[in-house]
């Protein structure tokens, strides 16, 4: 089997057993990156030298018989909103173009300590605001299944890189669906853990009460292995939760007998593509045939989650992004008058359109006179959404539905209509409001050949339920790889920029 097509866990095992060299794995991934980046643009920055250096270090440890993690030597990628000491962290924004963080995000640090080889930083929607990776200041990322289409977003670079075999797994972040929706569009697996499971220290904040870092990989097993490495209590993140049940790989059991699975009727109604519906229901059927008890139910409040989300996320964004003022880091405009002039000009020139739109909306809903009507109203709605899920999880172990209403749209299709783009988050957003763990698992393709994602949502701290269901489902099918992800290095120049 080609190295590039191995799972992260399998490659880690072979590196540990010294059947494959860490450097050999890194070179294979780097060659794939060189071959495909002119077409796909998954990465904002690739650190070839650093990757080789890390691989050599890991190899030395393995050769010396030192204790290494299960993913030691496995090349991976990090979304560009996470800090890595000495490597630029841009959030795909002009305002952070030259920012080189002096410290490393805690989640990334855990992986690096375990021997991860970081290939580079992946492209994203600017400050994670968007669903297509088109709002990036550093160019659009293309979908490996069809470069005329978007990879989804905001973790589009991470998901496309995983699908294109340009890395073995990646970290993403999910505020309203930013791991699950692009995972669905790119045909890979991605988990947003329970809020508080992975430290946000070193993650450049968007909506702090909603943001969570999570793994993206080509299988549920790989996702569980990565999550196991990055989940821990961190005193540097005041929202970090103390958990004792982070042995997620123990849930990789092909057995769903008696598992109660609920499908919200609200997730199957108007607006859902017919082919997506069929694929999702077929996946539910497959789980039922394995012994799960599957039924439909009414979740309620689904249509209120999006407006509540945009109020809360924009409000938090307007506050979080006030730190970008051209004083301590990032872009500073030229030719301004006074301190306030400098703030305003730097921010206006540094931020893109979608970011400004959300900062404006957030500033408005927090302003006196509107705070109660919009912000508090949204927080009350959030409480009701949480109650609806509590009720649902009294009857079900897992909630099953689509990750997105459609497969990947064409480039530019959603960018022109923000509201339409926001509506695409309808099935993912509620899990962020309620803090729930949720994942997307590939469940077939539509007639255009584009991947469809199955979403599994669990109750707080019940990742193991969705991992078990996702794994059991995955065992019924083979992983599908886009044709373009086949090793390209043998034919250099085949994928030139068009």
């Amino acid at each position, binding site marked *: 089997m080609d190295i590039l097509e191995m799972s992260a866990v399998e490659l880690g095992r072979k590196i540990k057993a010294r059947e494959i060299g860490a450097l050999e794995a890194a070179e294979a991934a780097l060659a794939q990156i060189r071959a495909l980046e002119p077409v796909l643009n998954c990465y904002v920055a690739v650190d070839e030298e650093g990757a080789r250096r890390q691989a050599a270090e890991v190899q030395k440890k393995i050769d010396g018989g030192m204790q290494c993690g299960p993913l030691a030597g496995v090349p991976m990628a990090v979304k560009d909103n996470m800090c890595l000491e000495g490597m630029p962290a841009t959030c795909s924004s002009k305002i952070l173009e030259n920012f080189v963080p002096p410290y490393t995000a805690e989640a990334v640090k855990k992986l690096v300590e375990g021997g991860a080889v970081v290939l580079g930083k992946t492209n994203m929607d600017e400050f994670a605001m968007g669903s297509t990776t088109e709002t990036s200041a550093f160019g659009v990322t293309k979908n490996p299944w069809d470069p005329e289409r978007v990879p989804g977003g905001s973790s589009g670079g991470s998901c496309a890189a995983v699908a294109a075999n340009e890395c073995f797994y990646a970290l993403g972040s999910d505020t309203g669906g930013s791991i699950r929706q692009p995972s669905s569009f790119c045909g890979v697996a991605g988990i947003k853990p329970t809020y508080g499971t992975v430290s946000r220290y070193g993650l450049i904040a968007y909506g702090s009460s909603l943001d969570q870092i999570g793994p993206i990989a080509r299988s549920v097993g790989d996702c569980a292995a990565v999550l196991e490495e990055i989940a821990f209590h961190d005193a540097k993140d005041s929202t970090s939760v103390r958990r004792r049940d982070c042995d997620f790989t123990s849930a990789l059991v092909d057995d769903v007998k008696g598992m109660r699975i609920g499908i919200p009727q609200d997730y199957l109604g108007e607006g859902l593509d017919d082919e997506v519906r069929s694929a999702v229901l077929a996946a539910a059927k497959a789980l039922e045939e394995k012994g799960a008890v599957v039924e439909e139910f009414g979740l309620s409040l689904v249509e209120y989650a999006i407006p509540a989300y945009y109020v809360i996320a924009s409000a938090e964004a307007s506050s979080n992004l006030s730190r970008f003022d051209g004083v301590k880091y990032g872009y500073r405009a030229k030719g301004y008058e006074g301190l306030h002039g400098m703030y305003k000009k730097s921010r206006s020139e540094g931020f893109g359109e979608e970011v400004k739109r959300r900062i404006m909306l957030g500033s408005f809903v*927090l302003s006196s006179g509107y705070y109660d009507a919009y912000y508090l109203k949204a927080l009350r709605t959030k409480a009701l959404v949480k109650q609806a899920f509590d009720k649902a999880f009294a009857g079900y172990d897992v909630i099953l539905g689509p990750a997105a209403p459609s497969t990947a749209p064409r480039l530019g299709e959603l960018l022109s209509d923000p509201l339409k783009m926001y509506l695409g988050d309808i099935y993912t957003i509620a899990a962020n409001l309620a803090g729930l763990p949720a994942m997307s698992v590939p469940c077939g393709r539509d007639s255009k050949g584009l991947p469809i994602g199955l979403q599994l949502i669990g109750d707080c701290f019940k990742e193991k339920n969705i991992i078990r269901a996702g794994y059991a489902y995955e065992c019924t099918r083979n992983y599908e790889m886009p044709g373009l992800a086949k090793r390209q290095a043998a034919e250099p120049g085949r994928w030139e920029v068009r």
Partner: protein
Amino acid sequence: MANVITDETIEYVGILAKLELSREEKEAAKQDMGRMLDYIDKLNELDTSGVEPMSHVILADNVFREDVVVNGDAREGMLKNAPKQKDGAFMVPKTVE
């Protein structure tokens, strides 16, 4: 559009957001915000009387720690990112006459 955003409102929000918008950007922002608020007004269909606003789902308590420095001196690394610096400090335009 039910929500009509006035020039004054956009001006005021621009001040709060510390953004300087061009005339075209202001017009677009008025339209965008009006449309978004129309959509957000859907929340008014919900009766939320007696429902406590929920900021955090998982944690209810504040987290405290001793006020001691635990990280090392990162001054050099921090200053490296400064658009302008002088004598180990960030340089900004003159703010007091």
